[in-house]
C-alpha cells in the first residue's frame, strides 16, 4: 500500500470517528432520533453542519500530520500552490480584511462582505487553496495582525466557516459556475432558470424553513408584529430589486451564468449559516458586532431560544450576503484579463465565456 493511500485512509477514519463522536457528544442520535413534530428537526441536527466541518478539518489535519511524519514535508498539499496562487493569497486576505473591517464593523451594514478574496482564490486556484486561504485569513486576522489596528481577537473562531466558503467556491469554480454564458438559446435559458428555481426552492424548504417554526409571523397583521413586517418587507423589496436586476441580465444578455452564480451563492450562504450559527451562539452569545444583531434580538423577543434566533438571523443574512459576494467575485473575474486568470491552476476551467 503506497504511503499516500495510507494517509487518505487514516484521514477518512479520523473524520468519520470525529463526526460520530462529535454528534454523540452533542446529544444527537443519527438515524435513531425522533424529529420534533413542530419543526421537523432531529434534536442535535442544528450543530450537524458544524460538527461535519470540524470532522473534515480534523481529517485534513490527520492527513497533513501523517505526511509530515513520513516525509518531514507537506509536498502533496504544497504542490497545489504554485507561486501565483501563493502571491494571490495575501492580497485576497487583505481584500477580505479591509472590506470586512470597513463594511461589517465600521459601516454597520448588516452584511459581512469579508470573503470576496477567499472566493476569488477558490475560483481561480481550486478548493484546497480556497479553503486554506479562508482558514489562514481568519487566523492571520487574529494572530499575525494582533498588534496592528486591523487585528481582531474575535475572528479566529469563524476560521472554519471561512474555510468552507473557500472550499465551496473552489468546487463551484471547478464546475464552471463562474463562467459567463451569454446568448444562451431560449429553451436552454428557460430550462436552466427552471432548474435554478427548483434548487433554490429545495434549499429554502429543506434548509431554511425548518428553522422558522416559531411564535412569530412575517407579514402578520397584529401590531406587535410590526418589526417583523418591516424586516420582511425590507428583505422582500431587496430581493425583488435584486431579481429584477438579475432578470435584466438573464433576459437582455441571455446570460445563464447569473443563474449559476445565484444558486452557488445561496448554497454557500445556507451552509455558512448552519456552520456559523452554533459558533455565534456558544462563543459570542449570538452576536457578531454587525448590524444584523438586531435581528437576533428581534427573534429572541418573539420567543425563540438563543440558538434558534441565531439560526433564524443567519439563514436570512448569510444567503443574501454570500450571493452578493459571489456576484461581486463573478463580476471581478469577468473584468480580469483572460491572460491573467488562465495562469492560475483552475483559471481556465473557472473563468471565461461559454458561447452558445
Amino acid at each position, binding site marked *: 500500500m503506497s504511503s499516500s493511500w495510507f494517509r487518505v485512509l487514516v484521514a477518512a477514519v479520523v473524520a468519520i470517528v470525529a463526526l460520530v463522536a462529535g454528534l454523540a*457528544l452533542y446529544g444527537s442520535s443519527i438515524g435513531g432520533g425522533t424529529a420534533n413534530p413542530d419543526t421537523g428537526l432531529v434534536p442535535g441536527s442544528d450543530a450537524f453542519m458544524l460538527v461535519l466541518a470540524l470532522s473534515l478539518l480534523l481529517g485534513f489535519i490527520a492527513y497533513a500530520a501523517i505526511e*509530515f511524519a513520513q516525509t*518531514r*514535508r*507537506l*509536498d502533496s498539499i*504544497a504542490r497545489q*500552490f504554485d*507561486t*501565483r496562487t*501563493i*502571491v*494571490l*493569497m*495575501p*492580497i485576497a*486576505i*487583505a*481584500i477580505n*480584511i*479591509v*472590506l470586512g473591517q470597513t463594511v461589517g*464593523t465600521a459601516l454597520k451594514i448588516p452584511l459581512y462582505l469579508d470573503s*470576496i478574496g477567499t472566493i*476569488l482564490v477558490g475560483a481561480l486556484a481550486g478548493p484546497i487553496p480556497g479553503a*486554506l486561504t479562508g482558514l*489562514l485569513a481568519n487566523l*492571520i486576522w*487574529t*494572530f*499575525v*495582525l*494582533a*498588534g*496592528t489596528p*486591523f487585528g*481582531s*481577537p*474575535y475572528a479566529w473562531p469563524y476560521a472554519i466557516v471561512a474555510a468552507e466558503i473557500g472550499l465551496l467556491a473552489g468546487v463551484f469554480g471547478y464546475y464552471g459556475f463562474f463562467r459567463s454564458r451569454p446568448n444562451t438559446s431560449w429553451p436552454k435559458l428557460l430550462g436552466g432558470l427552471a432548474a435554478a428555481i427548483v434548487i433554490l426552492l429545495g434549499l429554502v424548504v429543506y434548509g431554511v424553513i425548518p428553522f422558522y417554526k416559531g411564535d412569530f409571523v412575517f407579514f402578520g397583521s397584529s401590531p406587535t408584529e410590526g418589526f417583523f413586517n418591516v424586516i420582511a418587507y425590507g428583505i422582500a423589496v431587496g430581493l425583488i430589486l435584486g431579481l429584477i436586476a438579475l432578470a435584466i441580465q438573464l433576459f437582455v444578455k441571455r446570460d445563464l451564468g447569473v443563474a449559476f452564480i445565484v444558486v452557488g451563492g445561496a448554497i454557500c450562504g445556507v451552509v455558512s449559516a448552519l456552520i456559523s450559527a452554533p459558533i455565534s451562539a456558544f*462563543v*459570542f*452569545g*449570538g*452576536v*457578531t*458586532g454587525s448590524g444584523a*444583531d438586531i435581528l*437576533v*434580538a*428581534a427573534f*429572541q*423577543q418573539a*420567543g425563540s*431560544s*438563543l440558538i434558534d434566533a441565531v439560526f433564524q438571523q443567519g439563514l436570512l443574512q448569510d444567503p443574501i450576503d454570500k450571493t452578493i459576494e459571489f456576484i461581486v467575485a463573478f463580476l*471581478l473575474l469577468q*473584468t*480580469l484579463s483572460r491572460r*491573467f486568470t488562465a*495562469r492560475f491552476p483552475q483559471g481556465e476551467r473557472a473563468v471565461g465565456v461559454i458561447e452558445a
Partner: protein
Amino acid sequence: MAPPSGNPTTLSEADRAYLASLAPQAASPYHALNPLTKAAIATIATLAAFVLGGYVAPLAILTVLVIPGAVAAGVLTRLTRVAVLISVPISISVALVSVFTRAGATVLFTVGPFDATAEGVDFAGQIIVRLFVTAMALGLFGLTTEPRAFVVDLERRGLSPRVAFAAAATLETIPLMVERALAIQAAQRARGLDTEGSLAARIGGVMPLVGPVILSSLTEVEERSLALEVRAFGRPGRRDQLWTLADDGRQRLLRWALLVGFILVLVGRVAGALPALP
C-alpha cells in the same frame, strides 16, 4: 532537474552570533519569550475561559495567565485600554441582545415592549467577561510580539516557507492596499466623484473605489510572482533563517503543561467531573 539535497551552505557559529547581536533588544523578559509560548498562553487562556464559563474561572485565568505577563512586560495600562476598546462595541451588542430579549422569570425593569430579565443580565455578563478575557489574552500577545516573529518562528518549526510568505506578506499588503485606496479616491474625486456628504453619496462612492482597488491589487500578482520566481522562491527544501528566535526547555515545558492542563480541563468538563463555577 533534481532538487539539491541538503543545504550546500550553512551559517557558521560566528555568523549566527553576529546576526543574533543585530536583533533588537527585547523590551522586557516577557517580550523575549518565544512567540509560540506567548501564542500558547493567549490561546489556552481564551479556550479555557470558554470551556469553563461562569465569572470566577475566566477572571482567575485572567489573573493567573495574563496579568502577570502584562505586568512583567510593563504594558498593563495600555493592554487594558486596548482590550476595553476592542471588546466594548461587541459587548454593547451582547448586552442589548441578551438583557432585553432573553426569556427569564425575574423581570428587573421594562422598556417599552422589552423586559430586562435577571437571567439575561447574568448571561450577558458571562459572555462579556469571556470576551474581555479573550481581548486581554490575545491583546497581550499582540502588544508583546513583533507581528513577523510568530510566522518566522513557525517557519523554523517546519511551516511551509510558502505559507509563511503568504502570512507575512499580508502584513505589508494591507497598508499598501489602504494607501492605494486613498490614491484612487483622490483620483476619482479629481474626476468629480462625490465621496462625502449624504449616506447615499457615500454608498454611491463605494463601487468606483472598491473596483479599481481590487483589480489593481490583483494585477500586481503577475509582477510579484515573477519577481519572486527569479529569486528562487520555488526552490524546494528548507531555508536558512537570518533571524532565529530563542527558545528553551523551560518554555517547551510550559507549553506542554498548558496543553495538558487544558485537555484535562476539557475532558473534566465534558465528562462532568468538574463542576460549573459561578
